[in-house]
């Protein structure tokens, strides 16, 4: 390995091998699966909705100009929906991490740090 301790060595009490050993632990595999099962579909859906919005702004201008009430048209509502989606995902992710991810991840971290006193 070409890295130097000055670069990014772990704190003295735990070795890189101890940390790497956790990678194949079923609990870590489960942690990864839990996390990606949330983040990947949610992110792809949010980005897809953004892309739909950009495409509609480019190619479906009459549609975006449909007036819903007063001077509020569909384009504005769909634009504001991007804010709603972003805020909702942020809220949902912090709920997910608080309920599931943080506890599991802290458990594994404690395991590594305590088991790694060689």
């Amino acid at each position, binding site marked *: 390995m070409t*890295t130097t301790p000055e670069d990014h060595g772990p704190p003295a009490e735990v070795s890189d091998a101890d940390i790497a050993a956790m*990678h194949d632990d079923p609990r870590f595999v489960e942690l990864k699966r839990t996390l990606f099962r949330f983040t990947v579909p949610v992110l792809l859906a949010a980005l897809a909705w953004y892309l739909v919005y950009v495409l509609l702004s480019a190619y479906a201008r009459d549609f975006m100009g449909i007036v819903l009430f007063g001077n509020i048209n569909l384009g504005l509502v769909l634009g504001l929906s991007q804010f709603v989606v972003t805020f909702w995902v942020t809220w949902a992710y912090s709920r997910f991490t608080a309920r599931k991810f943080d506890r599991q991840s802290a458990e594994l971290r404690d395991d590594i740090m305590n088991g790694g006193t060689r």
Partner: protein
Amino acid sequence: MNLAQEMSDSNRILTIALFMVMVLVTILITIQGGRKTRTATDFHSGGRGFSAVQNGFAVAGDYVSAASFLGIAGTIALYGYDGFLYSIGFLVAWLVALLLVAESLRNSGRFTVADALSYRMKQRPVRTAASIATLSISIFYLLAQMVGTGALVTLLLGIKEGETFLGMDSGAAKVVGIVVTGLLMVAYVAFGGMKGTTWVQIFQACVKIGLAFVLAILVLVEYNFNLSDLLGDAASVSGQGAAFLEPGLRYGTEVPGDALQTLWNKLDLISLGLALVLGTAGLPHVLIRFYTTPDGKTARRSVNWAIGLIGMFYLLTLVLGFGAAAMVGREAIIAENPAGNSAAPQLSQVIGENIAGSTGGAIMLALIASAAFAAILSVVAGLIIACSSSLAHDLYNGVFKHGKASGHQEVVFAKFAAVGVGAIAVVIAVFAQDLNVAFLVALAFAVAASANLPTLLFSLFWKRFNTAGAVAGIYGGLISAISLVIFSPTFSGTETSLLGEGVDIAWFPLSNPGLVSIPFGLVCAVVGTLMSKESNPDRFASMQVRALTGAGAERASVH
């Protein structure tokens, strides 16, 4: 409503006095922060002691530039709906940072983006490439801000061509504006390090978001909080009618009888949208802010705060933009500044006058001008620290000293680097002050999305990814984004190009390279990876465990 006519010397002195108060407060903050800056961790990452709320405000300070503050409000004021597209891209982009990057980066890196990128690679080639990308992105962004600063200071002080104030004509005032901004940003970083800079950014975020909030509420009060009436007024004053509230006046415009140009314009809009949404999570000055928190969980929670603040801010710009369209009017805005940057200050003056006559107008204008100045200062300071950290930690220590320089040597080098980058930026900005460099912001986002984001995500999540892939991905994304812009209409061939109409080397039809350069950077990273046999599964295992659990992560320094 003409700022220059309305603006007497006493009003300008009020604006300058407010500027000075703000500058004085930030200098005191810097001195306070600098006193506690000793180690490399203090200088690059502010001691890693900032809470989620604090870092969330600092991220907002780092991210909400004068381009957002004045530019988006101005674009909405002149083109209506289309100005909104920018704010949406800038906000949705944060989901990438929240869901994939913030926590993992904080857990697996140390001071710079290159730390995480090079974790399981050969250090020198990857650090060099990552550092070149960091410097390119930050310097493009910095130059756009600095050139804008000169024009902005004259605008905010209302100094027109041919007028003088305190013996300065508008040309001299521009230069003074650029030099003062340069001195302040270097002072924040060199004396305050990341700790001082973070507190300055927290303070300035409060100033700019708070004042934008007050102004937006005052606009809404005029309309009894009826958004529909505000939009209706904006549309009728604009002379465009309902079209003002629909897409198409500014981006992706349809050219009658020229189907090909219409196609390019629409693709350009999509290209811009992609770069905005994928660029944010690759901006080095934003990413290194995550290292200032004690752990990955705090870094992630600071993004929640940042999203709340930034989202609220962009909703406010919507009100400010349409408010300026309705209450100031297109002609008055264009008379002041053809790009619309004066819309928000002009709006503040009108609102102030409605409340308390010309004194009220002067006070509101001075307040909003200070908020805009705060936006410039906090962003440029963030960019300078990103450059100096990368020069010191990645190039000087990582590449030239093989990681053997002491923390003290690194900090000293970083301070000189801050002065050097600041001086270069000031000189270029002074010479480029009359050029149209607005495209540099879009270019910075395009490079971040093409060179940084794919390689960062691959290094965090793709086991097979290796040195050749990282190097190919970074240079591929960087070079393709820059060269496509050089051969685009923003650079040559049209009246508004950087080089003007006289030179025409434009063969690439889009102003925004993202649509091509992002996939190109991605393909380079994949092909580079597959062509090299290098693979380090153990190191990937340890990186991923670190990223997701925070085991062995860098800790906050104890004083």
